[in-house]
């Protein structure tokens, strides 16, 4: 299984950009994508939309999406936005 690691730094805009880039690589991924959120302090609606789209695309390709390093504030945002169940989470 191939694991692709995508690291984020900064806030929402960088997340959107990084996810868009990662999404382009999804066609070549055949295992799991690990999104490293340890550098992310806040997310905005665009980031959430991008994450939702990304998981949709990953699911369509049977690629598992795992988030790591998500801080509790962002974890709560994902819960409120009903997105947390779409991801696997690791600390």
């Amino acid at each position, binding site marked *: 299984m191939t694991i692709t690691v995508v690291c984020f730094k900064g806030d929402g805009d960088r997340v959107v950009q990084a996810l868009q880039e990662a999404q382009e690589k999804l066609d070549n991924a055949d295992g799991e994508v690990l999104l490293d959120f340890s550098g992310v302090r806040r*997310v905005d*609606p665009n980031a*959430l939309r991008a994450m939702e789209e990304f998981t949709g695309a990953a699911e369509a390709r049977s690629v598992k999406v795992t988030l790591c390093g998500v801080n509790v504030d962002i974890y*709560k945002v994902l819960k409120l936005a009903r997105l947390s169940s779409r991801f696997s989470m690791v600390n």
Partner: protein
Amino acid sequence: MSDRTALPLTEERIAYLEGLVRQARTAAAVFSQLTQQDVDRIVKPMVLAGLEQAQYLARLAVEETKIGVMEDKALKNMVATEFVYNYVKDKPSVGLIREYPERGVVEMAEPIGVIFSLTPITNPTSTVLFKCIMAIKTRNAVIFSPHPSAWRCCFEAVKVMYETAVKHGAPEGVFTCLESHDLEDNKYLMRHKDIGLIDATGGPGAVKAAYSSGKPALGVGPGNTPVYLEKSADLDMAVVDIITSKTFDNGTICASEQTVVIDDEIYDTVLQKFASLGAHICNDKETEILARSVIDPATGSMQPTAVGQKATNIARFVGITVKPKTKLLVTPIQGVGLEHPLSLEKLFPVLSVYRAKSVDEALKVCVDVNHAGGLGHTAVVFSNNEEVIRKFGDVINAGRIIVNSPGSIGALGGVYNDMVPTFSFGCGTGGGNSTTDNVNFYHYLNIKRVARRTQAHMWFRVPNQIYFNMHAVENLRNFQSRSTLIITNAALEQFGHVDTVKRSIPAQTQARVELIPDAEPDIKIITQGVEALKFYKADQIVALGGGSVIDAAKIMKLMYESPEADLEELAAPFLDIRKRVVQYPAENEKVNRARLIAISTTSGTGSEVTPFAVLTDKERGYKVTLADYSLTPDVAIVDPQFVLSMPRGLTVDTGVDCLTHALEAGVSIFASPYTDSNAMQAVRMTFKYLPIAYENPRDEEARTMMHNAACIAAIAFSNASVGVNHALAHAFGARFGVPHGRANALMLPHVIAYNASVPTKFMPSPNQKGYVAHKKYAMMADLLGLDGHTVEEKVKNLVTATEQLLDQLGVPRSIAELGISKEEFEQAMPDLAKIAFDDPSWKSNPRMPLVKEIVELFWSAYRGRGPAKVETGSKKTEKAQSMVTV
């Protein structure tokens, strides 16, 4: 623009609505990350934008709805922004919002998430501005559903707020406004799982739909504001205020005045003042025309065409001739209700007036108006008579009772009074609402209470003075008294103890003796004693005896000092003495006063220092336990000369009672370091000296130490209480006539093992950190010098040592040894278990006894002493030292 049909929603429509909710949900989720500073940075420019657009939005509202007055609507928009901002600006709404350090409680704010908000036709833009500010202040997203006839102006108001909010950091999608919509849209959204709250400001239909949705909802009930204009009022002020309010925005605010009830004495003057300020006073015919024109006679509802219209236009529509500048149509009415339509709500400048012959009639008519569609909403009183204002506030059911100021603007808050500014009036249950508040940003929050563990206040109360050791009775000389009554029994008199006491009483004191039976005090004996105290005008009572005599003296003192005291009521059960419902008579309620000096002649009950007394009423067949620190004797004398002649049996029974007090106080959930020191010392002294006193009754040292031990143990349990051992002993002793101390002894080893084991059910005990009973038993074992390395070993050794002590004292090893058959005991068991469970003693036991455990304990005691089964739950190697934190 809108189509309020009830067609089923199409898939496209559902997708549209789902999109709105998803957007709002995302915005709300993102919003939860913002700080207080972030939020406040957004609110201020929103308020400024609202102020800038106040006139523009007002004009839009009037053009679209054809209701109200542009200038007034502009003013409302300014109140909805500036006044609301003034209220919210310094108030925390994110994270920690309030602290109560003395209670260890802090309140924290949690946003609701997505709010679905209905806004009205009458106050469209001001309501939108108000709700947007509240939502941003509280980090919520809102989906607005404006009244269809006010959609465009509301949409504009939402747009102004939204653009400013997002520009300053609010998440995209935080506000949305339903595009052209129908009732089905509202129904769908009201039931949507992602809508956290419905805030329905609108007509009764919208509010009812909100409350019927099954979602938490804020709704506004209908109004019908009664006004009482009482003769002491400032009439000039009152009339101007009423006109100002009733004509404000052509009467569209639901808090505006509907019927003014005027005292007969001022009625004509008031009407003249109304007329002189531009009101038209309708004659009977004009009133009748209005009554059938502006109100639907069948339903009592307002004719929509009249709502928010000028007085002159209404007059013209119905064919009444009025002066061109008429502000208000005043209609005299003779009653309230559907048969008097003008007594109902009129959101236009028609004001009813009623002439009342008395304050009583005026208040009753106001109540009628209040109940004719305005429950919980708003009421107004003009008066300078405080009694009238208070009575009005008492009889009227309204969330806002406005005094000497205009109803509509007064109810909005912040202008004429210090109420919270709002555009949403909670009407309480009378109006079918969940609150009577002026709805404000706190209603847009889930407020969380973070409650820290607090230590309950504890106490350590003992008699003022305790004299002990041989011949301590001589200290009686120190107490001045004019008339002293010695309460004692015949046996003690025969022993010469009464004479010993008398010799120590100062010569100038008149000392009399009241002999009572040596048995649990009966109400008849108490009554006789109280009569004697009254007869001798006693100022001092000396109780010389065991627990029964001292208990009797405590109750006699209580009844002598407070003849009105109801003993049955004072015996009412309680869980925590500090929170008890029934209070004992206070010092200033006492009609007599007498010092109580208790001299104990047994070494067990410790009644000379306890706040307890037991009383029976043989005739009525009841027994009560009184408990209050006011019962504690003022002085205790612990003089062993009175116990040297105690028979062996009594020495054992009382001595084991003392040991039980100490052991139970030691592990009680009310134990404290203060009581521990006494409990532990009493355990040590009893183990050491009771066998000596038993073997050699004349051993002065042993008698002295046991007498002291009993008092010290009583000090411990007076403050920490006892436990399940006493509950079992009370039930068993009463049923089978076994002396209290012996009954305690039969239970004791079993109860130690029981309390030291892991409880099936823990007892709530805020003052203890974890379960400590087994560790405290281990400490007692250490104090006694028993072997053992682990807690479990030490507890087992304590049980064994207790059994050996009881064996040494000749205490029967089992209930069976008392000659009670198994069948007899089995037959008694249901009652025993019930009575023991009802006994208050176990309420301080460290382990909550289940009824089946009480039964098991009884059966253990029946079978008798044997190897202790203790499962403390501690690691086998756990050391006992320094483990107890209380």
